[in-house]
């Protein structure tokens, strides 16, 4: 007999996600992905100065900080015809790519690792054997062991874990599923992973300074329609100059070392222990991306110019699991369905025309169960040509793989050989974790390339970072529309803006987590999260009180719920709310 299970809150994600499930015999038979926060930011930006909007929409998410701001300024520039100078674009590319690498490392160690790593088992590890383990996995990943791997460090981390466990106050580890039979790593791997969890905290603090140099702060650095606000004259003391250039070079080298010598071997080793997850968490076999990570387009990705790296990987769509064929991407085929979301309307609409009216039909909180109703979430359900799509690192890696990108293919083939899997099995919980790491490697290598291009420009005297010609609203057309696509850490992001008489008339963002976390569409097709849990009836859930298998799969998508939900009422109509 089916048993109902609720997991709320899903922790170690951005924002608020609730998963409702039905299980039978230790397998998940039905799943509902329920976004439980709504803020209405797109409504709030209506009527505002388009040059201000990046600051509002950047607050859609503090984990994906920077990327919404860049998507917004690109969309506004596309609308008003502003042309940021190449160095301003290079700076944005640096910011997006640095953010992406930092985000992937945080995701692996701080948001995903504790689904695979039993912290308490680290106490059984011998620090000397832990070093040997770290050296062995570095060797099999083809790198030398990281300088931070030492017997002393592992002993120190073990002592920290011991003091926490002995004190009886587990702090954030309270209530964890320690000792669950699903944890399979040897003690040494657990100790090494806990040490790297702590090392990664320092790593992210250090690396993000690349963004701070140009944006002044992080999270939520500053951006500017028409370029960047940070001047870059090598012969001035008050601008970004050789001092910052030298610092950034160091930070990139540090990031490069951490990703190659810590993240890559750890991910390959941990995924290898949990190989069965290449058959778990399979979702829709369709993938969408406008290029590799960091690809940014103001306007149509098929025609707009992008300074972004890897221009050789074009925007594309993979359908029905056929990795041999890349279909051209057509932005006009995107629609958003509200069939399962608490908004009015029956017809799926294109984002440029998206009309949304809040119509809450759920129970008044506190509540126990949402999914008996057709509507159960604040997240809309985007579709491409009516199909359920996956976006994100996996989609980009598959696109790059199918497009013959050499470095991606090399890394993917190493993993495929190591695990003895078929490429199709990348569409899985383990595959998404692996793809994220592959992408961190290609992105951090790209970071150096972008930076070198930027410095070469400086050497040639290219120091302009702002197009002032379209700054004043008087220089804009009375009515203008624009949009942008950016490949950000969690996947494909697009912002859509309509400007009338110098003010925002319509704004919409189609966000990676909306693509992934959305619920059933008008035809009843479940969204990607739902498919990954209940698509084939084989997803395990051994103990509903300790839903660790569910966390592994949901975390593999790197959910960002605040991003997923936004609404616009373009006609300024009163929002109608019905509380049952």
């Amino acid at each position, binding site marked *: 007999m089916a048993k109902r299970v*609720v*997991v*709320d*809150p899903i*922790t*170690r*994600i951005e924002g*608020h996600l*609730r998963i409702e499930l039905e299980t039978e015999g230790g397998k998940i038979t039905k799943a509902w992905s329920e976004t439980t*926060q*709504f*803020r*209405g930011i797109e409504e*709030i930006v209506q009527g*505002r*100065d388009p*040059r201000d909007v990046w*600051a509002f929409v950047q607050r*859609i998410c503090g984990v994906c900080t920077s990327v919404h701001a860049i998507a917004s300024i690109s969309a506004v520039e596309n609308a008003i015809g502003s042309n940021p100078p190449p160095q301003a674009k290079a700076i944005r590319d640096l910011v997006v790519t640095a953010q992406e690498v930092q985000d992937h490392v945080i995701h692996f160690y701080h948001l995903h690792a504790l689904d695979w790593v039993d912290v308490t088992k680290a106490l059984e590890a011998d620090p000397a054997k832990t070093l040997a383990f770290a050296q062995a996995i570095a060797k099999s990943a083809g790198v030398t062991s990281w300088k931070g791997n030492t017997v002393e460090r592992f002993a120190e981390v073990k002592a*920290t874990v011991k*003091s926490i466990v002995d*004190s*009886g*106050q*587990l*702090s954030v580890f*309270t*209530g*964890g599923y320690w000792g669950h039979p699903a944890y399979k790593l040897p003690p040494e791997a657990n100790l090494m992973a806990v040490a790297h969890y702590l090392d990664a*905290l*320092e790593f992210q*603090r*250090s690396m*993000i*300074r690349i963004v*701070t*140099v*140009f944006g*002044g702060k*992080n*999270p*939520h650095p*500053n951006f*500017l329609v028409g370029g960047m*606000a940070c*001047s870059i*004259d090598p012969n001035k003391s*008050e*601008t970004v100059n050789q001092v910052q250039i030298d610092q950034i070079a160091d930070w990139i080298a540090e990031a490069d070392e951490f990703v190659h010598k810590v993240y890559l071997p750890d991910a390959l080793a941990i995924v290898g222990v949990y190989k069965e997850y290449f058959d778990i968490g399979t979702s829709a076999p369709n993938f969408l991306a406008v290029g590799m990570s960091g690809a940014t387009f103001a306007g149509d990705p098929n025609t707009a110019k992008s300074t972004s790296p890897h221009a050789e990987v074009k925007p594309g769509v993979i359908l029905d699991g056929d990795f041999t064929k890349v279909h051209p991407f057509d932005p006009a085929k995107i629609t958003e369905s509200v069939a399962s979301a608490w908004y009015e309307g029956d017809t799926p609409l294109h984002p440029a025309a998206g009309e949304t009216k809040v119509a*809450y039909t*759920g129970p*008044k*909180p506190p509540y126990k169960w949402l999914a008996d109703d057709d509507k159960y979430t604040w997240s809309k359900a985007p579709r491409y040509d009516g199909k359920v799509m996956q976006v994100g690192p996996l989609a980009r890696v598959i696109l790059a793989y199918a497009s013959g990108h050499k470095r991606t293919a090399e890394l993917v083939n190493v993993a495929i050989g190591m695990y003895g899997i078929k490429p199709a099995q990348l569409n899985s919980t383990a595959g998404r974790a692996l793809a994220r790491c592959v992408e961190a490697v290609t992105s951090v290598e790209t970071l150096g390339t972008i930076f070198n291009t930027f410095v070469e420009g400086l050497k040639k005297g290219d120091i302009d*970072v*702002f197009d*002032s010609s379209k*700054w004043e609203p008087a220089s804009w057309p009375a009515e203008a529309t624009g949009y942008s696509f950016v490949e950000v850490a969690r996947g494909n992001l697009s912002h859509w803006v309509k400007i009338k008489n110098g003010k925002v008339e319509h704004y919409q963002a189609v966000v990676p987590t909306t693509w992934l976390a959305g619920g059933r569409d008008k035809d009843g097709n479940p969204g990607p999260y739902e498919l990954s849990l209940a698509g084939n009836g084989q997803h395990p859930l051994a103990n509903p*009180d300790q839903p660790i298998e569910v966390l592994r799969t949901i975390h593999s998508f790197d959910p960002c719920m605040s991003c997923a939900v936004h*609404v616009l009422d373009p006609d300024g109509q009163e929002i109608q*709310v019905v509380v049952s």
Partner: protein
Amino acid sequence: MSYELSGWTEPTLEENLIRAGFDRRDFLKYCGELAAVFAVGGAVIGSATPASAASVPAEVIAEKLGAVKKPLVVWLQLQECTGCMESTLRSGGTTIEDAVLRLLSVEYNELVMPAAGDAANKALDDANAQPHLLVVNGSIPVKDGGIYCTIGGKSAEQVLRESAKNATGILAVGACAVWGSVQASKPNPTGAVGVDAIITDKPVVNVAGCPPIGEVITATVAYVLTHGALPKLDAQGRPLFAYDQRIHDSCQRRAHFDAGQFVRSFDDDGARNGWCLYEVGCKGPSTFAACPIIKWNKGTSWPIQAGHPCLGCTEKNFFDNYTPFYQTLPNVGGFGVESTAEAIGLGVVGIAAAGVALHAGATAVKQAASRRAAEGNEPLQAFGDSERVWLPNPKKVEVAPEAPAAETTDDSEKAE
């Protein structure tokens, strides 16, 4: 610091202090200072009538305190973007790992905790049942019965009220938790409000900013543990140690304001020479924050250094009151001289000089209710068509009597 923050290696406070070199006499004195933090005798941190050390023998306090374990923390994330937790992760002062693993027992925080669902809710209920420090990120959407943010099926308001019940102190961290921030800006579709609009019977420290600087967040927590009391606050409930200076007064570009040297367009010659950003919309003259002093991300830079005007993110309703962001603050002439700068302070911010006196007289605790109830405060306008900015008239703000627990001493030598 009065004790070694990273030295919590033994189960109890007394064992840790002995290990850190405290003798019994020091320990008894220290117990008095910490009494409020640990709510001995039902006291609330920094309340006007804290645990009365005089009526309880020091030995009794010592016995109770000696057995105290790591301070318990509940760290909620309500309607927000997680930027404040990200900022906390980036703190180069007291690091997140120090805070979470050595200094505190943070038994509920959704971003970092491994437990989910029922196990997470149980951890929260268990922590809520004991005295704890409550940190809140995010606003509370109160419209339509709380449907716009639910956690574990409960509304954000219910989650907050349950956690506030036994809290010994509450830190509202970030613009959302303080005033509602972006989602509370017009037309505020979800009815988002800050923590002290809901919790009116306990002191709330407002760590303002979108987000606040990571070091400021962790230092506020560390301040409470080090001093045994909430930090001294300004009239808006913000800790003085990070919000007593106007950006404008600590700004590295201030000399250019005084000299009338302004950036007229981004990336112009003035911009490349580090001139003042006032004319391209800088809100530094009306913003209290420590950005120019502490800077961001290990002291790397801060917004004005990186060439962008200050958005005023530590001030109330900045998304409404300080927009358009690139519009110059009103009522200040083109030639910036001292008198004009003072006029900004007087007219827009609310009397910088008097503010200093107010700060000096402010107690560590200012009840949220008394802040709101202070009548006769003059609303001031930042922009002609925007909502009036609520600003206090220092003469009318009631100053609560100095609480004994707020008296702090420098114990730094004892930890050596």
